[in-house]
């Protein structure tokens, strides 16, 4: 399972765009990059997943360069409610047990 590295914490202000970069140097061919969000006292919640280039949904965008050794989660115009811990994981979607390995995540604090 590929190990991921991401910043421990980040600060931002309401209305700004936030970019959280994650490195995953030993990502495998079958691995997808997946991001989860966790609010205090809640379970993690899936945000976005991608394999290469760019993926966008109603919540975020995910940018993955050609070598796939890193990825960037982009949150447009954050609000106070985006204050949470964000986890970057690589997941083997070729089948099997899909074990998720969580690191400490990135604690994002959005200020007024």
């Amino acid at each position, binding site marked *: 399972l590929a190990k991921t590295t991401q910043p421990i914490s980040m600060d931002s202000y309401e209305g700004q765009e936030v970019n959280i970069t994650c490195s995953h140097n030993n990502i495998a061919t079958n691995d997808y990059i997946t991001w989860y969000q966790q609010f205090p006292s809640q379970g993690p919640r*899936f945000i976005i997943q991608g394999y290469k280039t760019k993926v966008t949904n109603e919540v975020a965008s995910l940018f993955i360069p050609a070598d796939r050794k890193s990825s960037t989660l982009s949150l447009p115009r954050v609000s106070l409610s985006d204050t949470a811990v964000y986890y970057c994981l690589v997941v083997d979607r070729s089948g099997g047990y899909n074990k998720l390995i969580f690191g400490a995540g990135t604690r994002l604090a959005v200020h007024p």
Partner: protein
Amino acid sequence: NAGVTQTPKFRILKIGQSMTLQCTQDMNHNYMYWYRQDPGMGLKLIYYSVGAGITDKGEVPNGYNVSRSTTEDFPLRLELAAPSQTSVYFCASRRQTDTQYFGPGTRLTVL
């Protein structure tokens, strides 16, 4: 659908007591997981199941047991509770290649 439900939400145990954390999902997911999360840390996998009757150990299985008699239920059993098992426990489930859906968690304190 209610999704993944967990009971109880909170529990305080004395050292040496036993208890079962309940997890139920109504999405007909084959895969189910139990994680624990210590303060300020990421989640660690305790046990997982790929279907009824099939379970396997994760990263930190010691002190826990599981069973999977039905697709819907995946209870986690703590025998002889220890202070090191004080944590928040999350259950999750998924379909074949889908993402994992997490329950709201059970906060357990062992004194």
